[in-house]
């Protein structure tokens, strides 16, 4: 779920950009090092990024019948690792803003934080954790991808709540509202994305 252009106040835009910057920079430094040692990785990374973009531009059928775009971060994180995924997601989010008008330039930092950092790291952590705890591969992948997607939506709702706290319920109340408004599309989407990722990883594992 993207926060659209102009929706966040200027201070929040700057704040989230600063919060995301270290993660993107760390990933960029790592990519730069790998690419300098193995120049052929550059093309593979370009293709991987294109794949992540196409993935997130796909219309996903959802159990409620509505259609929505997956984040793709769960699949991307399990294929390429969270650090690389953060950088690729940052570029993908920039492309989405300029090719689809989804998200925006002023909200890029906030969207990178939810979709490029929290999502992939939650997915990656869950995948590692559940696998280590002895869960089957399908279960680990399902929860990693579904909760990775869901965490993006939860973080986005909190970002909105921080910007627009509820006069009565404060930030927590506002978060509840935003979670509620977008739940109709986002919860079924997370389940679909989890299931889809299981199908894809099963096929790729063959």
């Amino acid at each position: 779920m993207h926060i659209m252009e102009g929706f966040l106040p200027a201070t929040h835009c700057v704040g989230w950009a600063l919060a995301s910057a270290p993660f993107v920079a760390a990933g960029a430094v790592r990519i730069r090092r790998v690419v300098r040692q193995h120049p052929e990785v550059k093309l593979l990374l370009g293709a991987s990024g294109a794949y992540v973009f196409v993935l997130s531009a796909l219309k996903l059928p959802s159990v409620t019948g509505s259609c929505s775009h997956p984040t793709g971060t769960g699949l991307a994180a399990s294929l390429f690792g969270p650090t690389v995924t953060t950088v690729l997601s940052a570029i993908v989010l920039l492309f989405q803003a300029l090719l689809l008008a989804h998200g925006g330039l002023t909200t890029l930092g906030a969207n990178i934080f939810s979709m490029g950092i929290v999502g992939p790291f939650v997915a990656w952590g869950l995948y590692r954790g559940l696998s280590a705890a002895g869960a089957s591969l399908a279960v680990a992948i399902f929860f990693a991808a579904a909760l990775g997607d869901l965490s993006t939506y939860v973080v986005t709702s909190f970002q909105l709540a921080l910007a627009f706290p509820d006069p009565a319920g404060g930030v927590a109340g506002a978060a509840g509202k935003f979670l509620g408004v977008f739940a109709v599309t986002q919860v079924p989407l997370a389940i679909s994305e989890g299931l889809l990722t299981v199908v894809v990883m099963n096929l790729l594992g063959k």
Partner: protein
Amino acid sequence: MRLIDRHAQTSRYRHLPAAEKLIAATGAMAVALTAESFLVEAAVLAAAVALLTLGARVGPRDLWRAARVPVGFVLAGSLAQATSLSLHGGLPSLAWPVGSLEPAAFVALRSLACIAALLGLALTTPLADLLHLLRRGGLGRELGDIAFLMLRIIWVTLDCLTEGLRSQANRLGFVGYRRSLRSLGLLLAALLPRTLGRARRLETGLAARGYDGALCFLRQEQPVSALRLGMILGGLAALATLARLGA
């Protein structure tokens, strides 16, 4: 998916320097984000829409198609902002608190103004032109190259995806939720090795052209015009003044 790009590639403003268009769009966004008056937001929105429809001659239907997803988000988000959630005996209840409508409406208008400014940039400027600015302005050689390769491979991969979806639909792959999910899974799983394979073949293809790890190419672009830049900055200054007066 290709709507915005198609407009950007064929726009009357395509050949204006990307830097000018970027300054105009981000400048307008900056004014909109810092202003606190409805009038200024409305002025930015009106200016961007006028430039798009009258200047760049984007049809109203295409403009709506490009804007509908972000506008949907803005409406839902502002609705949530305008209402108030409180707990009464454990049950959540919604209310429309007095005075909540105005700030919500302001945020909605501000967001629409910024979306219009973003579209003003996106519908007139090919993404590659903006990537050039970014590459020069700190994105770095490696990431810049990766972003360019991504852009090129995205188009090729999208063609494969469209044809794949079509072929699966021909074989009734999207009848029902379970089948749809399975079909999409099959398609994505087949697409990954294909996309990575393309990267390998592209490596061979570029090597035949002397590729040694750096993607260099010559650009044809108009130099930034002091006159146009002055007009853009003048317009932005006028908006900023309006914002100050309004506040």
